[in-house]
């Protein structure tokens, strides 16, 4: 006790925080870092000056709203757009219910989607005014309405009425989807009974989407008219959903003890991984029709889906194999000791552990697949990237490649970036890599 009394009071280390301290630590900690900071600042200034001048004074962004529908749905007929809206409404219902039931990640995701929807619902009318000569059918604003709008001044009664008209009538589908999302969220809140129904709904939503988009009877929209972001998303979803089980099977096949299965899987994986995707797409597009029996011909979009799936499955197999190798042999032996059969061992013991450890690689593969769908531009199909072709082909908009490509790049970036941040959240939730 004496010692304790004698010890001098030691002050805690200086943990002062503040902008000056932060600057000293992160930008000016050594002389060469200070020099680097100066160079970087000059560089950034020049880049930002150039970019901002171009974006705000030189770029002609009118081309984007003018062709918004082409970018989003390609040559999908205007009269049938309601079919897409029905699909979107269905998905909003499912998303709202899931967000209510599971909270967490799904909730954050739907918040993000809802805010994007809200922003596009409330796109300032000034912009609509300035581009009055442009066809805005995607937003269900007929031309005469837009033309009339030029005369109305902000603040007047007519202006307000027009806003109400625009939001509640012309954009009713978008508004409807948003309302459905919110309502179903509150309906589904903490109703765990609904879990199985919602999962079933998600599974059924896939054929439902296909049927609705394709339509029936006089509302049929052939797949040749699918395009834009819609086609990109469909190709990516089908590819992701289909390549995953195929990849798992190939990975199991490659690690099989039966030589015939092992060799066939290995040769398939290595061949596909050794050639570029475009050759596989060409095989699907040009050579597959030769191999089809009789007059039976597959649709061009379906052939592209097959090409993407077969290609992606080989890469998926390698990712899964990495996970399988990380599962200790003892797990398999323990499963055999308690008498599980091979399928049960794999399904309940090995795969859950294997897949968990390779989630980052698998999501990386999904992102790559999403980017790779742009290659159907070459076949050609009119996906998001292919849509630029029809826009730039119009002599009225010549020389606007930079604007168009940047806009498309931003859309791609938004999706891939969202996917990678979702993957990071999942990783954090599962605690991958923290053993």
């Amino acid at each position, binding site marked *: 006790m004496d010692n304790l009394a004698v010890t001098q009071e030691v002050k805690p280390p200086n943990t002062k925080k503040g902008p000056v301290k932060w600057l000293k630590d992160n930008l000016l900690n050594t002389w060469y870092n200070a020099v680097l900071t100066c160079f970087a*600042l000059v560089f950034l200034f020049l880049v930002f000056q150039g970019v901002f001048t171009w974006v705000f004074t030189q770029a002609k962004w009118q081309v984007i709203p003018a062709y918004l529908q082409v970018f989003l749905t390609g040559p999908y007929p205007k009269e049938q757009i309601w079919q897409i809206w029905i699909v979107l409404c269905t998905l909003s219902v499912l998303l709202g219910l899931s967000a209510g039931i599971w909270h967490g990640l799904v909730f954050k995701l739907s918040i993000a989607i809802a805010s994007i929807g809200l922003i596009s619902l409330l796109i300032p009318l000034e912009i609509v005014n300035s581009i009055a000569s442009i066809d805005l059918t995607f937003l269900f604003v007929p031309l005469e309405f837009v033309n009339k709008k030029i005369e109305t001044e902000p603040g007047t009664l007519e202006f307000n009425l027009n806003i109400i008209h625009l939001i509640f009538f012309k954009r009713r589908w978008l508004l409807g989807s948003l309302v459905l999302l919110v309502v179903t969220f509150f309906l589904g809140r903490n109703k765990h009974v609904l879990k199985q129904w919602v999962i079933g709904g998600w599974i059924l939503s896939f054929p439902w989407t296909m049927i609705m988009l394709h339509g029936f009877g006089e509302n049929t929209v052939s797949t040749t008219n699918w395009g834009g972001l819609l086609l990109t998303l469909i190709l990516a979803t089908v590819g992701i959903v289909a390549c995953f089980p195929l990849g798992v099977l190939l990975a199991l096949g490659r690690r099989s003890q039966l030589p015939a299965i092992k060799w066939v899987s290995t040769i398939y994986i290595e061949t596909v991984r050794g050639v570029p995707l475009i050759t596989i797409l060409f095989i699907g597009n040009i050579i597959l029709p030769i191999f089809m029996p009789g007059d039976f011909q597959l649709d061009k979009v379906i052939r592209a889906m097959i090409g993407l799936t077969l290609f992606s499955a080989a890469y998926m197999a390698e990712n899964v194999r990495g996970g399988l190798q990380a599962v200790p042999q003892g797990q398999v032996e323990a499963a055999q000791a308690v008498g599980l059969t091979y399928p049960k061992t794999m399904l309940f013991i090995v795969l859950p552990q294997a897949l968990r450890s390779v989630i980052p690689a698998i999501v990386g593969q999904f992102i790559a697949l999403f980017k790779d769908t742009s290659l159907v531009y070459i076949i050609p199909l009119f996906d998001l990237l292919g849509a630029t072709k029809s826009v730039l082909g119009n002599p009225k908009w010549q020389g606007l490649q930079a604007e168009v490509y940047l806009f498309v790049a931003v859309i791609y970036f938004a999706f891939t970036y969202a996917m990678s941040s979702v993957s990071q959240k999942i990783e954090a939730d599962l605690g991958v890599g923290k053993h």
Partner: protein
Amino acid sequence: MAENSTNIPFYRDIRFLKVFFQILFVIGIILLAGFLYSNMLNGLSRQGIKLDWAFLKSEAGFGISEGIDYDPSDSYLKAFWVGVVNTIRVSIVGICCATIIGFFFGIARLSSNWLIQKIAAIYVECFRNIPLLLQILFWAALIRSLPKAENSIVISDSIILNVQGIYLPSFEPGTGFTTWSWYLLGGVILAIIVVLGFAAFRHFGRDHELQQIDRPSFISHIIFGAKWTAAPTFLIVAIAGWFLTSEPPFVTTSPVLQRFGYVGGMNLSPEFSALLIGLAVYTSAFIAEVVRSGIQAVVKGQREAARAVGLKESQVLRLVVIPQAIPIIVPPLTSQFLNLTKNSSLAVAIGYPELFQVGETMMNQTGQSIPIIGMIMVSYLIMSLTTSVFMNWYNHRITRFGQSR
């Protein structure tokens, strides 16, 4: 008990089942292949195409805008070879550029300078998340919108950008090259003599009292000597030769503006430039990530230990961190190189005449899509295989000395 084990019905006997399933699987594959083959014969006969390789010898009849010597009257095989060479050309240049840029940004992401770190992170995230095809189309459009030859953008008098592509000064052997190469030969011979003498001196001259087991082999002396005596000798002779040669061994030709645009120097065509920039930038973003994670994977304790024994910060990097990071970096780096080679096939969208683009033209002209696709696939497989064999050899070489990773 013994009776029981023999009484297992054959349909539950694992030894039987293993063989049975494999036979079933192989039969299934053969049936599928046979079905597709008969369909193919039907389909081809419907289209009126006969499968054979004779078309390779006939005249190609289409022009190829760049590459090795070729004439439209040459055979299809020659045209295909031009495509292969063009693919290899853009891949090798692309790999070099992407590696340099990628290492630069990968190290920049680990900088202690916040600003530099963020700039590198933004670079990586932007170019990694946007489809390569879109990037290539963008660069191609950008180059096409450059000014005409009369008002080219000139950077420091030697690099010229205009709508016809990028012009760089080229280095070519000059009049004094033959003389200088004699000096080089002399340098090589002198270096060999020096290293042999050095090794002999080390091997026989000293350390006789050492135990037989401890004595390093003659080869290891040669390897040691090659680094410390032969290389400097050769360099000294080469540099001395450079100054002793009266005429310059190399000349630089800068592009000069003439009536129909720039002449001389090295011209990268617009398509090649766009493809190269696209491939290099896109792949460099991935390489930067590989480098960053490789360096971060070196256990922190290693750095701390190195600092604790008093190494300077540069020595910590050079002697401790990098030797351990390289073996982690090399395998994913290999797959990035392979990706770059395969991605060069996207040139078909902007018309750079590489393997795939030439193959597509051939398909359109002859209708022999199956053999041509086969040739394309085999070419890519050979390239992939060569690259991975080389990188595996390199990986093996650098991980040989007691690396556990």
